[in-house]
């Protein structure tokens, strides 16, 4: 089976190790991974800020780049939702581009969703730690991917996954919201992190690097010990070879 990695700009720029983990895990399960070099950013910052013409430029680039792919897999629920939910809407008045957008939408998956729904994997990993999981809003509500990451993490040997209180509440990242409304965004991070602390775990696991950068950045600023990790990193770190 072949799949193309859609790295997302945040992972490309700040967290390349997450991309490497995705490749490692997918290849472990027999997927032939390719990486179209022309990919950039999905355009979400522009779209959510109201700059839809600018977002279309990014969208057209991404549609062109992934047109030859069988599957597109992304380590971000939010960016995958951009492909799946937003692109077809963005081009709703342009028949040609809308059709191309819909084709991309149909073959795009978030990482954990791809592992569970398409590959049906049985996790072969061990990672002794206590952790809790943060459900990112776009993945949870717009993609409808809720249980897949939990299903995977629950199969990891030695990993104790504790329930996060208020797990479906937003962490306060929200893309440009984090800068435009920095006071509110930071206050929301503190609310979320107070719940994380209640779980008394070492690691906060997530599926969206925006949320993890925001919460991790806040934890770091406060000198807290809790680490943040992407699901792919947990699976790759504990992979039994």
């Amino acid at each position, binding site marked *: 089976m072949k799949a193309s990695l859609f790295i997302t700009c945040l992972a490309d720029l700040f967290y390349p190790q997450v991309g490497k983990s995705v490749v490692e895990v997918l290849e472990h399960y027999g997927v032939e991974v390719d990486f179209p070099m022309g990919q950039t950013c999905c355009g979400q910052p522009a779209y959510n800020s109201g700059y839809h013409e600018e977002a279309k430029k990014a969208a*057209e680039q991404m549609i062109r780049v992934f047109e030859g792919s069988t599957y597109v897999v992304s380590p971000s629920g939010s960016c995958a939702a951009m492909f799946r939910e937003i692109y077809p809407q963005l081009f709703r008045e342009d028949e040609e581009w809308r059709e191309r957008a819909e084709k991309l939408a149909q073959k795009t998956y978030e990482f954990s969703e791809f592992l569970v729904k398409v590959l049906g994997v049985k996790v072969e990993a061990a990672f002794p730690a206590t952790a809790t999981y943060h459900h990112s809003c776009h993945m949870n509500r717009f993609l409808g991917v809720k249980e897949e990451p939990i299903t995977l993490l629950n199969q990891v040997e030695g990993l104790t996954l504790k329930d996060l209180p208020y797990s479906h509440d937003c962490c306060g990242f929200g893309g440009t*919201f984090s800068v435009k409304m920095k006071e509110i965004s930071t206050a929301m991070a503190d609310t979320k992190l107070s719940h994380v602390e209640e779980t008394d775990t070492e690691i906060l696991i997530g599926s969206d690097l925006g949320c993890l950068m925001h919460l991790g950045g806040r934890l770091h600023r406060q000198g807290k010990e809790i680490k943040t990790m992407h699901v792919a990193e947990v699976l790759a770190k504990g992979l039994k070879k």
Partner: protein
Amino acid sequence: MTARRKEFHQRVEEAFANPQMRKSVPITQDNLRFGRIRAMEELKNGEAWREIASQIRNHTLDHLQEYVNELITNFEKNGGKAHFAKNGEEAVQTVLSIARKHQAKRVVKSKSMVTEEIHLNHALEEDGINVVETDLGEFIIQLAGETPSHILAPAIHKSRQEVAELFSKEAGRPLTDRTEDLTRYARERLRQEFLDADLGITGCNFAVAESGSIILISNEGNARMTSSLPKVHIVVMGMERVVPTWAELDVLVTMLTRNATGQKLSVYMTAISGPRRAGDLDGPEEVHLIILDNGRSDILESKYREVLKCIRCSACVNVCPVYREIGGHAYGGVYSGPIGAVLTPLLDGMEKNKELPFASSLCGACTEVCPVKIPLHHYLIEERKDLVEKGFLPKQERVTFQAFAFLTSHPLFYRSAVRGAGRLSPMFGRDGVLKKGPGMLAGWTDGRDLPLPAKESFHDWWRRQRGEKR
């Protein structure tokens, strides 16, 4: 209105400087939101109910003029008098002329966000009329000289102790902060107001077209007192409150109470079909219905029409993580939370309220709970788009996104930029993070550390490891 004059960020600052509000709001918000989850689960097929409620509201909006006409005809057949008001000013003038005709000096009010929208109290007081809000929450904020901070719990931001202080001052004697003492005081105080009032003014949760009936839903019974004790009763309703028949009312009331407070039904549900008839023991001699447009026709014709489906349950407010942090006053309008962020710019002007559509992380919790399926967070994005197109946002921002569009559609430049950031980053940060960023980065680093761009981007790693395939 004083709150409106301040900028959004200033109002947010004030909210953060109010520890009592920040403590009180989450507690009540939780009671309401978890109550809602329980109540909707009891319905079993909550999603089907949402779909039906949404369809009822869509159908009503599709035939709004017909149903409003039917309502007026039947309401007048019952002996009431209907008025139509194009805007707030017309509605206020209609109320004032009725008050003057009856030489009213004292007014009791209940259950009305829409009279807040048209600033009715202010106009009545200017005319020398004494106005008393009779919902407990409204009464509290009236004493405090504030505006509502929540659609159905207007005093959500106040503690019991604060209420005790306000009431003690009003009573001229110290009251304890025991709930029983406070409600007893309010009851005694308001009872006299009901008896003395010349005029009762209420809002309207729904109005049933087929019978010309006004429906008031409350937990305190004050709406009944307001609408039945004074000789004249005036109802002010937004024109979209109409419901075709009682069968549809059944669905909408079920959705309203369950989504608002987690109740199967509220304590009181009053249906008013007109003034007292010959032989009736009580009830007002005159009932007036003022149907308010105030920009609603324009919204109906616009791409935002579904916002008129709102039944004011406040489920969106109760799940909103932004509201949880900043409370209702920060929104600066009559309606707070996500519905307020969408509605206030539409009713009160986009440019004046241009921060509101951005006061959301777009988490979608509001859209997920809305019992009539208003696409709230999509509307927020749409309003942002309108603000961009109208040129109401800083020019610098447009330039930034134009640069973004160039980079994202030119992969070679994009890759160089990413690579450049990776190479330069060690010069700026320490400890793997940036603690004090320049320019726009400061918005991030004021509250959070920013990881430094990786020395080798994923793109470069892949090229080094696997070579360029495509």
